[in-house]
């Protein structure tokens, strides 16, 4: 079970030097992944990162074999990561080539590259196993990542890499935002779209390779995909989305590594991904901009307003009300009695509703371009939506010519 002291220690960077370095690295990595991932999502290329990450495996295997061949330790992390980066580039180039040069769509190209590169990587892993080169344990941890057996200089390498990626993302963020948000405008301001796309893919590769050892190649794409999709629920603005997504990634990295350090058998990679997934579900349900509950609340509030307004107008016209929901709303607000006769407040509110309807009708006649917004606005008390001056102007017209109210 979770050990509270250990968890707090890990959260406050007091659980040992290695754990602290790994946690810092994971936070930077999460931030970089979330930020880069936002641009990837906006360019609709999220799953290219999946092909990229799976394509790292043969490179890791070949790098291991080459280093072992030259008598070194095959586990040397920077060497393995360089191998991973090279084969990821080859994988990316293959996806690009298949989609550009043949009739295949990007989904088929991604899937084909992903599975065949990964298959080749598995073949190389079994070669390494059969050769019986000792200490190949480090290789397996590239599949699912692991932080428990990490050496100190490995942790430092990763933290430095994560810092470098985070820095690059920070420098390039304006250019990337511009390309994602408005390609035409970006082109006219002198930004090379293809080069920016290439830069973006290089950043994706950097995040992937850095994340390999911690999160593992199967799940590292989650760092690039889940935070931006979660951030999408909080905002419609690119700039805000980049910030929220980076934040979600960083928090996932932070809490994930802390949990992993304080609970036995809690592998860091999958736990980081699960924390991100929890943040995603929370965003999906509760985010104010596009969350499910807020959407439900808004549509209920709107339908309540419609029932209130239509009910009050019916009272004024002396019509019987049959709609159950309308009766419920009117009763709840004390506009009608239990026997459905209007109360004093109900009659006053009805007078007022009719007056506002009339004022809105005049307003719309004079401002036809406001029709779309007014469809929702006209259900609110008019004083909240228009200035006193505007209302006074409408009142003047209302009481002016004896033209009958355009009652609806």
């Amino acid at each position, binding site marked *: 079970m979770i050990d509270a002291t250990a968890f707090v220690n890990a959260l406050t960077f007091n659980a040992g030097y290695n754990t602290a370095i790994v946690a810092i690295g994971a936070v930077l990595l999460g931030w970089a992944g979330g930020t880069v991932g936002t641009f990837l999502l906006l360019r609709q290329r999220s799953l290219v990162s999946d092909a990229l990450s799976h394509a790292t495996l043969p490179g890791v295997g070949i790098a291991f074999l080459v280093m072992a061949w030259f008598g070194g330790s095959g586990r040397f992390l920077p060497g393995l990561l360089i191998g991973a980066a090279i084969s990821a580039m080859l994988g990316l180039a293959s996806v690009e080539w298949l989609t550009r040069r043949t009739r295949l*769509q990007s989904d*088929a190209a991604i899937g084909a590259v992903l599975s*065949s590169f990964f298959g*080749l990587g*598995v073949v190389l892993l079994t070669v390494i196993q059969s050769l019986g080169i000792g200490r190949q344990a480090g290789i397996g941890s590239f599949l699912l990542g692991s932080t428990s057996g990490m050496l100190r200089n490995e942790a430092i390498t990763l933290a430095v890499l994560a810092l470098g990626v985070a820095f690059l993302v920070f420098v390039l963020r304006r250019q990337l935002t511009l390309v994602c948000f408005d390609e035409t405008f970006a082109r006219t301001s002198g930004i090379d779209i293809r080069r920016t796309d290439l830069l973006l893919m290089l950043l994706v590769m950097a995040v992937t390779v850095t994340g390999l050892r911690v999160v593992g190649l199967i799940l590292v794409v989650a760092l690039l995909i889940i935070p931006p*999709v979660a951030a999408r629920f909080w905002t419609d603005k690119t700039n805000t989305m980049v910030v929220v997504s980076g934040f979600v990634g960083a928090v996932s990295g932070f809490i994930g590594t802390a949990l992993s350090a304080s609970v036995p058998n*809690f592998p860091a990679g999958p736990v980081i991904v699960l924390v991100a*997934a929890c943040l995603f579900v929370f965003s999906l349900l509760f985010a104010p901009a596009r969350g499910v509950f807020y959407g439900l609340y808004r549509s209920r509030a709107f339908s309540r307003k419609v029932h209130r307004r239509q009910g009050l107008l019916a009272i004024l016209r002396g019509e019987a009300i049959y709609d159950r929901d309308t009766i419920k709303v009117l009763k709840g607000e004390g506009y009608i009695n239990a026997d459905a006769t209007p109360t004093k407040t109900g009659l006053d509110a009805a007078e007022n509703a009719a007056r506002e309807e009339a004022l809105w009708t005049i307003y719309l006649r004079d401002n036809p371009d406001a029709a779309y917004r007014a469809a929702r606005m006209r259900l609110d008390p008019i004083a909240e939506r228009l200035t006193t001056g505007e209302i006074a102007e409408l009142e003047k017209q209302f009481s002016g010519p004896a033209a009958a109210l355009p009652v609806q």
Partner: protein
Amino acid sequence: MDGLYIGLVLVPTLIGVLAAVSCALLGNFLVLRKQSLMGDAVSHVVLPGIVVAFIFTGSMSVGPMLLGAAAAALLSALLIELVRNLGKVEPGAAMGVVFTALFALGVVLLEQSDTRDVHFDVEHALYGNLESLVWLAGMDASSMFEPEALADLPPQLGRLALALVAVIAFLVFFWRQLVVSTFDPVFAHAAGVPVRFVGAALISLVAVVAVTAFEAVGAIITIAMLICPAAAARLMTNRLLPQILWSVFFALVSAVVGFWAAGSGMELIGSGFSVSAAGMIAAVSGAILGLCAVAAPQRKGALGH
């Protein structure tokens, strides 16, 4: 024919071929519908399904395992639709969210549950163990007619044969609906074809085949065979039926050549060990696609740019 050859080579090769062909047949429609990555997603979420089934039943028996995996596959398809509609994100991203989250859940559950006494780990799930699906009772050619010996055949063989029959039956009975809803969904809808139902049935069948194949040969072969042979076949021809036949041929070649290269092929080049057959089969299918992308007659499509 040498008995050892039948038991140690022919039977596992046959299992690989059955898995490859079932996947390739369905893969044609996934590729044409731009849904190739559904196979990828489904293969990933099989893991949590199996782990949950194990936690509930406490055993690694096949029935609950297949049931759990199929349930997880269907659940993931539903979740992807849900995320897509609620979040209004592109299908690829929705898929990425769902399958990574579920796969992570599967790994954590696996680490937390006590599976030490049963042989199961993530590596096994990924690349299966085709080489171990041997038929030791098949000691000579005559045992092919002995009931006791036949009863000792790896059960995966029968299950995969059944899956292949189901796939072929589906293609034969729903051919018209499948084809028309793949190429022109709007027309199909207008003509009264239940487009959504056909799509759901296709994905369900992919899940069933992925689960059956996964248990025998691991996730890599499943993903590779759902995509590579069909993609390569797409570059060979403009017509659907020839494309399907090409894909079956490519799947067959990948399975046979891959299995051979992983075992006997390695001995041939003087190496004293064999490598992962599943990985080799996937790599061979990728190589076939690479060749087709360079030289196949219809690689550029009708536009010929």
